[in-house]
């Protein structure tokens, strides 16, 4: 029982990290229709910026993390301005956008390798005892990850529900044409969406760097899990994406309980395949006709 609870807690932590990335990925996908694979590189950038600011420049952690979040947000905006907006202007096909996002991810990962080297960059806090919650033990970084994911999810849903910018994002997501016709500055909203989505990935990148270090390709696996979460949660349902990420973390860790950890990826993709075949609209996704309306 103790083992099961610990594995569930580990799954919750892993899922929380993926949830933050999935929220940003899902938001960008829903509002701008961009399959933003380079989102993983934005997540990695936050880790590297935090490493540089705190580890190399010696800034206090709070300042370093704020700088890292600002840097990641700026990078997300730059990717939109430099790559996706010109493609949208030329009415490029979704396939071209997808390939471009893949190219941006590969370019950025290589750039990180050149700037920070291929070695893992540690901002890792030295080993110490964790927090015991009954039979479960979690480290400080793990507790912070769960808390950050909860704040990010609640904050994003509130932002979309009640702020003018959030409502504008929903309008653009539903119909850019209609939004533009009622005076919504669509391109500015899209840029804001990249800013918000990138900002959401920053805490996950920073916390991962604190936990296990940063490396150039750290975003690939995470963006993969985020993608699965968005599809399983249901396109358009950001709360669903966050819940799906948590569920994915739990399922994978329960899988480890019974089988070897080498089957982690197989379990994750089995979940995706199961949903694609049995429930293509995901857990909370709207039916196509409803979504169009």
């Amino acid at each position: 029982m103790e083992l099961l609870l610990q594995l569930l807690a580990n799954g919750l932590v892993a899922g929380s990290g993926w949830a933050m990335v999935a929220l940003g990925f899902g938001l960008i996908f829903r509002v701008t229709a961009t399959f933003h694979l380079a989102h993983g590189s934005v997540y990695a950038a936050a880790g590297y910026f935090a490493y540089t600011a705190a580890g190399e420049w010696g800034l206090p952690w709070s300042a370093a993390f704020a700088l890292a979040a600002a840097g990641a947000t700026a990078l997300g905006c730059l990717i939109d301005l430099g790559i996706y907006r010109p493609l949208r202007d030329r009415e490029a096909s979704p396939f071209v956008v997808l390939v471009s996002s893949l190219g941006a991810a590969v370019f950025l990962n290589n750039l990180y390798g050149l700037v920070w080297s291929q070695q893992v960059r540690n901002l890792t806090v030295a080993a110490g005892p964790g927090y015991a919650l009954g039979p479960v033990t979690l480290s400080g970084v793990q507790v912070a990850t769960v808390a950050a994911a909860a704040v990010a999810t609640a904050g994003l849903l509130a932002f979309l529900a009640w702020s003018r910018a959030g409502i504008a994002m929903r309008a653009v997501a539903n119909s850019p044409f209609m939004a533009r016709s009622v005076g919504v500055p669509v391109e500015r909203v899209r840029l804001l969406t990249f800013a918000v989505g990138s900002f959401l990935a920053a805490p996950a990148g920073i916390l991962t760097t604190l936990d296990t270090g940063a490396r150039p390709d750290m975003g690939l696996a995470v963006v993969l899990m985020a993608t699965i979460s968005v599809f399983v949660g249901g396109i358009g349902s950001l709360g669903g994406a966050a819940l799906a990420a948590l569920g994915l973390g739990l399922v994978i860790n329960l899988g480890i309980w019974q089988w070897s950890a080498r089957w982690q990826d197989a379990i994750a993709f089995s979940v995706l395949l199961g949903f694609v075949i049995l429930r293509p609209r995901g857990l909370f996704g709207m039916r196509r006709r409803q979504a169009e309306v």
Partner: protein
Amino acid sequence: MTSRRAGQGRWALAAALAAVLIHGGVAHAQPKSYRFGAVLPLTGNGATAGEWMRKGTELAVAEINAKGGIDGVPLEAVFEDSQTLARAGVSAITKLVAVDRVPFVHTAYTGITLAMVPIAEKNKIVLMNGGGVSPRLGGASPMLFNQIPLGDFQFAVLARYVRDDLKLDRVAIIYRNDDYGDGMAEWARRELPRIRLNLVGAESFEFGSQDFRSQLAKLRATNPAGIFVVAAGLEQANILKQAAEMGLKVTWLGFTPFESRDIAQIAAVPAEGSRYTMPEAVGPRYDALLAAFTARYKMGQPDYLVAGYYDATEIFANALRYARGKGWEYTGDSIRKALLEMPPYDGIFGKTQFAADGTVRKSISIKTFRGGKPAVVKTFSLDEILRMQ
């Protein structure tokens, strides 16, 4: 008389001409440099390790060349990136064969090395493993040499030490799911019961993993007194760190890769009291390496891989000198023959004398971390180890 003198003169002229031709011929055949390859994981999951390997190789090349190279000819290392992938390693050695035409190549990582073996055998290229310890490397090819005692040799020493000196009865193993980890786990499952060590748990992880908490939770449930760690670099440091955060208190047991800077930086506290094996490395050569490394790279304690690839390069230079002394050409076959025939090389990790299967046996030290720094607890001489087995 005149004709005898004339005859002698003709002989002298012919001899002189022959000498000029031979000498000139040799001078003409003298290469600008002796090139050798190094297919190392400079990017990808093994990039940190690859950087240490590159530094060790470069340091040895610089020192050899500063002393005049090989009879005046400098050594030149051609580095290729395996990206820590077998297929990229195969591409790299193919390029070294076709373009650089090197007869000798440093390799790293078991899976990559084994993937390169067919090309090495076909083209008669010597592969020198400077740091990998998977048992699967032993006798894998007549062209493959391993200059560090392999994992089965080290495991046998550590397992008996765990049983006889530490008196631990329940042990577990956490290992990387690759040729290195699988080879060691295979050995553990087969051999530990034979020496009456109870293997109560075995968990694996994928190469490049950074979160080991679930595997550690499963191992904790088996209540082991000691856990063998078959991993490298940051993987090990994260395993120890995450175990400490989970409150898992065991004696950590490892092998040569355990002596990494990552453990000293991140997991120094949980590593206190650990035990791991390392070929005995004492004396002035080790001190000289530390001083040279610090002077060149402005860094502190190097990883064991620096010493491993430094030794591997020195061994190559010695083999080259031996082959030249015998008048052999610069080919893989002659380097291989030299490696098997030449006198033992006295390196950082003691005397290296290759067996016919390309492996070495050396004295093994049992080490630990004290105050975040590696320290020798006990050393088993080669004779003692052979008696054990």
